């Protein structure tokens, strides 16, 4: 099980979510799951993502997930960055 925190328009993926409240999903993960595979399951396109944080580390989408992980995803509208310049944690 991991917890996925969603911001901006991604909040709409959680029924009953409201701005001003933490918006998160608990998700089962399978052996070999990565941030990218979880995003796919959530129907989040990579191009639509500005920032990913895994356990408070700025991350690429190809990191493997483990039980108990905290994942946070910010949409492109909350982008305040040129992503190619950022050194991201990678596995």
């Amino acid at each position: 099980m991991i917890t996925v925190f969603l911001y901006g328009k991604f909040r709409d993926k959680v029924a009953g979510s409201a701005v001003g409240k933490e918006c998160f999903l608990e998700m089962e993960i399978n052996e070999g799951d990565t941030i990218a595979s979880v995003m796919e399951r959530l129907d989040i396109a990579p191009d639509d993502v500005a920032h990913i944080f895994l356990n408070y580390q700025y991350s690429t989408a190809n990191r493997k997930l483990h039980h108990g992980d905290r994942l946070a995803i910010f949409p492109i509208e909350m982008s305040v960055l040129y992503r190619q310049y950022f050194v991201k944690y990678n596995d």
Partner: protein
Amino acid sequence: MGKFILRVNMSDLSVKKEDVSEKYRVLGGRALTSTIVAAEVKPTCHPLGPHNKLVFAPGIVTGTTAPSSGRLSVGAKSPLTGTIKEANAGGIPAQKIARLGIHAIIVEGLQKEKGKFYILKLAQGTAVLEEAGQLTGKGMYETNKLIWQKYGEDIGIIGIGPAGEMKMLNAGVSCNDPENGPGRYAGRGGLGAVMGSKGLKAIIVEQKGPGDVAIANPDLFKQGQQKLAKGLADHAVTSQALPTYGTAVLVNILNEAGGLPTRNFSAGKFEGASKTGGEVINEWAKTRGGKVGHACHHGCVIKCSNVVNHPDGTYHVSPLEYETAWAFGANCEIDNLDDIAELNRICNDVGLDTIDSGGTIGVAMEAGIIPFGDGKKAIELLNEVGKGSPIGRIIGNGTAFTGKAFGVVRVPVVKGQSIPAYEPRAVKGIGVTFATATMGADHTAGYTIATEILSVGGKADPLAAAEKGALARGFQTATIFIDSTGYCLFIAFAVLDLPDAFQGMLDTVNGVLGTGYTAEDFNCLGAEWLTLERKFNEAAGFTKADDRLPEFMYYEKLPPHNHVYDVPDEVLDSVHSS
């Protein structure tokens, strides 16, 4: 139209016009205030005594049609830090001052009659001192209202509230926005106390229309303006994120980075972050009225500002920025944004810097004066400042002073100035900037935060200690240059990423001045001005030992990363050594 410098002597109440030397002609903003302060102020003087001077200077391109360029720099020796100081603000006065042909205003001496305040009235061809009369003792909201009533709408106002009149170390200098709100502050470093010490309540600027700002090479200027405007329109940060969510979008981002200082810098993550960030401000603009995408002055195309309303839809405060949402929010564990907005409003009215005020309340909470998380008690406590009560005077003197008054060890300051909203133990490069900036802990001194969390302008790993020194200096020189042009520092997001936008910025500067500065000159000039500021500080008694973060950060691990600050002293010392 020839430019001139106004020298205002508060001892004999004279106002004199002086010619601008060739050396000063090519300077503006921070470069000009710091050059004048370094030339005319004895570094060892008492900041509130007769030998300090307060200098106001619009930037090099301020007053022209260049986008987002209406900044006013205010400089002096700081009573809060004891260092040289420049703080700048948007709002409407800077463009008007520039359009009157005023290159800088130097305020010197002390008023003869203690407790008496004056206003400096500027208009085309005139500059006079008048008694402040009924404005004395008034908060900034009423001050601004009375001035517009008496002298007409759209007057530019630079003023101090009661905190400045009482010479409190955390008093800022207010500039009014287009709606006459007092929320655009040159807040940091106690410059409001310097203004108060001289008996100057306000500078009011009457000027309408585009004025007549000299542009040496209009074609080059125009070309540069177009390039820069295009860059700002193309870049996602300046065209989308800032106008939609404002700077407070960073509350959730820094929280997820584990770098949002919480509970007086004892954690990097705040449970209530979601309730206090830019998304809520954006939502309220729809449900309560108010505004996002607000411009703090005419001609800003980025529009990061906002207007935040009460639940009943009436005006509460403008702007509510990231630093303020954090200072009174996560830092005090207050998760009620209406309470945070009220604390912001009190700062604007009494005339206080919001960052240091939030730092102060956090330290007062640490001391047990009021509980963490109690917004209503925080409002009561901050309201004491304007009354000048004994506790109010402690709070009004800022974070470092309050820490000493109550025997607190965890006091988040560098050179007496409170650390802004980026936790150095999680974002180590910005710690280098906080430690080594010429003005005390200052998030605008160098944009390492942009590289590290926002990823603008280079590569950096937020948790690695190596090469932070060179990085910090590079950003400090870039920053001082932008602070001298009159452009809002937020253009950095675009100009550091887009070569054309950068060239556009340079072209506008060269266009106005008739110079031929290259990108390399840009670095050299920035480095030169930075050295000037460092020299002032050295002569004032500052050494390497002052370029350090507060000791607790070196031994208290900060959750969730559980890191201490481990950038070696040699890295900090290397920033300014070459």
